[in-house]
């Protein structure tokens, strides 16, 4: 087994170990040694800040998720078309054809989503 190329990372591992040790030690010390005098204000999510208006786990409209999903689709679209655009001249007709097929499939999906009312907010 070849471990030589892992050697430069030994200091990183040591640092990680010390960091982990301290990160665990300090909270444990603070929890076990520190004084505890809880009361209502102290137990609120934002101590000496805004008063909480409700729970964090609320129901909110699924519309936001639909937009998020559409965003991911267009995002991936850009990620795949961008490299082609950069290497446009080198790739020539082959690249153009490949990208056109990709965009055609993508457009069918877009039209379908549009027809299904995915782009309407209300």
């Amino acid at each position, binding site marked *: 087994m*070849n*471990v030589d190329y892992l050697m430069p990372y030994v200091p990183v591992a040591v640092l990680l170990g010390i960091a982990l040790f301290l990160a665990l030690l300090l909270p444990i010390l603070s929890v076990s040694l520190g004084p505890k005098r809880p009361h209502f204000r102290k137990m609120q999510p934002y101590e000496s800040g805004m008063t909480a208006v409700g729970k964090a786990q609320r129901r909110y409209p699924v519309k936001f998720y639909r937009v998020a999903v559409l965003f991911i689709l267009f995002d991936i679209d850009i990620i795949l078309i961008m490299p082609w655009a950069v*290497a446009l001249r*080198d790739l020539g007709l*082959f690249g153009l054809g490949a990208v056109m097929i990709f965009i055609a499939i993508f457009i*069918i999906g877009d039209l379908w989503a549009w027809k299904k009312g995915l782009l309407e907010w209300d």
Partner: protein
Amino acid sequence: MEFQAPAINIAIILPVVIVAGFGLVLMILDMLMEDELRGLGPWISLGGLVLAGLQTIALWLGGSYETFIPVGGHPMVVVDGYAHFFNMLFIITGILAILMSMPYLIKADIDEKAEYYMLLMFSISGMMLMGMANDLLLIFIGLELLSIPLYVMCGIARPREASEESAMKYFLLGAFASGFLVFGLALLYGATGSTALPVVVENFTAGGVIAYTGLAMQLVGLAFKVGAVPFHMWTPDVYEGAPTAVTAFMSVGAKVGGFAAMIRILAEAVPQESAPIWTTAIAIIAAATLILGNVVAISQTNIKRMLAYSSIAHGGYILMAVAALPFSGDAVSASLTYMLTYMFTNLGAFAVIMMVEKSGNRGVLLEDYKGLSKRNLGMALILAYFMFSLIGMPLTGGFIGKFVVFQAAIDANLIWLTIIGVVTAAVSAYYYLRVVFYMFMFDGQGDLEFSPAMMTATTVALVATLAIGFFPGLWLNLARTASLASQLLMAGG
């Protein structure tokens, strides 16, 4: 650097292109057509699958091909006997699933018809890609193309809560498992410098512990898809909540797809000298899968849940053959035979279950099978035959599958695993025969709903299971020609 286009021959991947293309056609039709014409959806998809099947047969007769070859590189797609065999398996699964879905969707009041068949077609194209992929990246794309439509199909009985829950569980856990698969891919790429299987196998040993970690993570991702213990947790809930037609499709398609990629990776991307390490891991997973699947199935009262555990157990039998891969020349053909018999038997059993099921997800408890022989003797006999085949009784397809798998395991000197396999097969007789007992030893009343499409699917599954049971030689030879060339070399030399 001058770019040179890879050598591409579309005719070779035409089966996948046809299936995915018909999925797109369904999408366009769904946009343009009026509601009345959407009933055409299942027929169009059936037509597409038959076309793809014909092209697969034509290619199969011609031998094996390679395509998408980058200049100076290795092909991304290899369409050999192995891929042809899996393509046919997936196309038949698709055809039977569509035949079963047509009456079932009406019975279950699921109205999103065109979407359903569109998703089914995309899922099948993903499965086919997994069988022919010769590159880790393509395997990943195939897996996602297989999985994402399945997530949606599980939830298509919306607003039934069980269906939504099953879709959500499958999606969250499936996405997590895909993460493992991609991480494994990245590690293998880092360790070996390529994602092409022939290059991975060359540099695997030099990759050392990183290559092994990558392989292990790839196996975790695929073991999730095939529902192997300890990655089986999602199976019972998802199978129970999903519409039964989707459960039937998923229990065969997703599982066989996962094994198609797993066997290809283990046989072609991992060198022979590392075999003792991964076969031990696979053998232990297989033993755990066999024991858990068969034992927990005993305590189930819902037949879909029972078949979910049974399908976990069947995954265990296939894993036995996978563990025998480097030591037995017949291991690949054994697993292919097992998957063939499992496909027909399981789909047939699900077809009968769909006929007994009533709308609103009722009629799926074991209690509902009491007195089925009095209600309809023919259906009870057919279901009993499928149950015998799932146990592995002689003169059924299941027997042939179990026989060749045990033989491969013995060839590979995995005696302890074979003993576990035989004992758990005996245990499985208890819960399969309980269904038969309920059907024949009680009184019952009420008619079953028949439909021509469902009857066709049941008949095809029954005839195929009978044919494999009574004339095994033909199918064994077929599976043997479909075996991987590199695997035969490995076991022989």
